[in-house]
């Protein structure tokens, strides 16, 4: 009996607010509730689904999260494979953990100070004679391609996966497979490509999925470094919610529900994939 009460309490704490939020958003986005509600209506949904800005915002956010993650994970793999000494050094272990202490807000602030047209990099370029005017420096923040956001997110992901891969190489007994393959005549490149990388990625699969979701929903980095029209999904939702126009609220809830849908699809896909991996 006690266990069932605990399970119920757990479900109320974990799923309760989430479900309440989804139901409330559904009702609000369909005009069933809200200060300016005039009864059930799908106008907000029609507006959101036909709005080019919303579509571009979602596509851009998916692109930015994916490309940042690919760059961050690939760079981490490269560093871990090329630097065996990282695993043996105690000081290196401590040093690798320090970048994890950077909140996205501070990372984005530093990246802005480095990359904007009057930033440190632009000044260095000017002093080196590579640019002759502040305007010559390319726009790397709040730009159309979200270069600043991608760089910052990749740098945000990179240290986590370096630490993760270093730990996995230590505890997964990978060295035994590598030694066996080498004794059978495999070269370093072959062992990396056929054994180490596939094993590391298999271990990292779930974390990669979680990080994708974290980057997809990140607010602080695109808020400081990203393009504002169309903004990344989380910033777009923030803009809709904080506008003084109450008429925008149903649309804000509708976009939030679209975001929830994307997260749920990705979450279920990766959960399914994770079970398959664990079953192998």
């Amino acid at each position, binding site marked *: 009996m*006690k*266990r069932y009460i*605990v*399970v119920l*309490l*757990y*479900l109320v*704490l*974990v*799923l309760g*607010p*989430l479900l*309440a*939020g*989804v139901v*409330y*958003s559904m009702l609000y986005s369909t005009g069933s509730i809200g200060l300016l509600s005039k009864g059930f209506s799908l106008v907000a949904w029609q507006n959101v689904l036909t709005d080019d800005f919303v579509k571009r915002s979602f596509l851009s956010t998916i692109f930015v999260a994916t490309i940042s993650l690919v760059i961050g994970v690939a760079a981490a793999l490269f560093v871990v494979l090329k630097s065996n*000494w990282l695993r043996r*050094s105690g*000081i*290196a272990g401590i*040093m*690798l*953990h*320090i*970048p994890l*202490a*950077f909140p996205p*807000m*501070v990372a984005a*602030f*530093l990246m802005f*100070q*480095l990359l904007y047209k*009057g930033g*440190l990099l632009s*000044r*260095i370029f000017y*002093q080196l004679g590579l640019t002759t005017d*502040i305007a010559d420096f390319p726009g790397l923040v709040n730009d159309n391609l979200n270069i600043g956001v991608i760089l910052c997110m990749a740098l945000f992901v990179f240290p986590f996966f370096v630490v993760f891969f270093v*730990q996995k190489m230590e*505890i997964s007994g990978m060295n035994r497979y590598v030694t066996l393959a080498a004794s059978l005549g495999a070269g370093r490149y072959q062992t990396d490509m056929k054994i180490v990388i596939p094993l590391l990625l298999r271990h990292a699969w779930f974390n990669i999925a*979680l990080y994708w*979701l974290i980057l*997809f*929903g*990140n*607010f*602080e980095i695109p808020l400081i470094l990203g393009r504002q029209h169309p903004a990344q999904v*989380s910033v777009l*939702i*923030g803009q809709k*919610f904080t506008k003084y126009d109450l008429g925008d609220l149903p649309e804000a*809830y509708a976009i*939030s529900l679209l*975001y*929830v849908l994307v*997260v749920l699809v990705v*979450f279920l896909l990766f*959960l399914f994939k994770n079970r398959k991996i664990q079953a192998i």
Partner: protein
Amino acid sequence: MKTKARIRIIVLINLVMIPFVFLLFLSIAGTWFFPDVLPGHWSLNAWHGLFLGNDFWWVLLKSVVLSSSIAILATAMAFFISRQLSRHRYRDILHSIAYLPYSFSPVIYAFCIQFLFIRSGLKGTYAGVLIAQLLISFPFVVLLFSKHWNHELKNQEILSMSLGASEYQTVVRVTLPLTMRLIKLSLIQTFLISWFDYGISLVIGRGIAQTAILRIYQYIAEANIAYAATASLVLLIPPVMLSIVQHKLSSNVA
């Protein structure tokens, strides 16, 4: 060989230190006009202003209390609840559910559930921010504990009870000491989740319940670079110290 190893470590230390040095540089850069790489003069105005003529200390103290409370509450709740969940028939599904709140963007999650806090009068209060942050950090700790409750630990508990210990004595004398490292790790992780949180504090705190990270964004939005850099450096002190402790704990757990 030793020299090569030393050079590698020095390079790594320098790379890791670059962001801290840059922050320190920005915090003491007085007048810094384009295209100068170095400022015209150095100034400690931001450091003086932040700590002598500002309520930043007070906000920092409130953030420490808030994050510590989250860490203690989430860890204590997850310790007891996850122990019960691990004995449930559908424990795998129950644990998978815990990934959900953690997968959502805190700011969007906060916007979607803010009506609960408005109705209960908790919006714009520290209690509201605490409860909202708990909704994310608690499932995270459940996940952290999920793999800890294995057969070995269960057998130790059964052995203790078969030797005459009560359930209370078993938890205090057997389970708790065997879980202590994970508890410390959980305290650190949940402290950091709360310490880094911007989205929930922004939406549920509504700017009234101020936290250190909200204050930093305020300085960034005001283009008050020196203040933002100084506050960021101070904000980084607890996470850096905790990351080092966490590294030692993770090595031991592994």
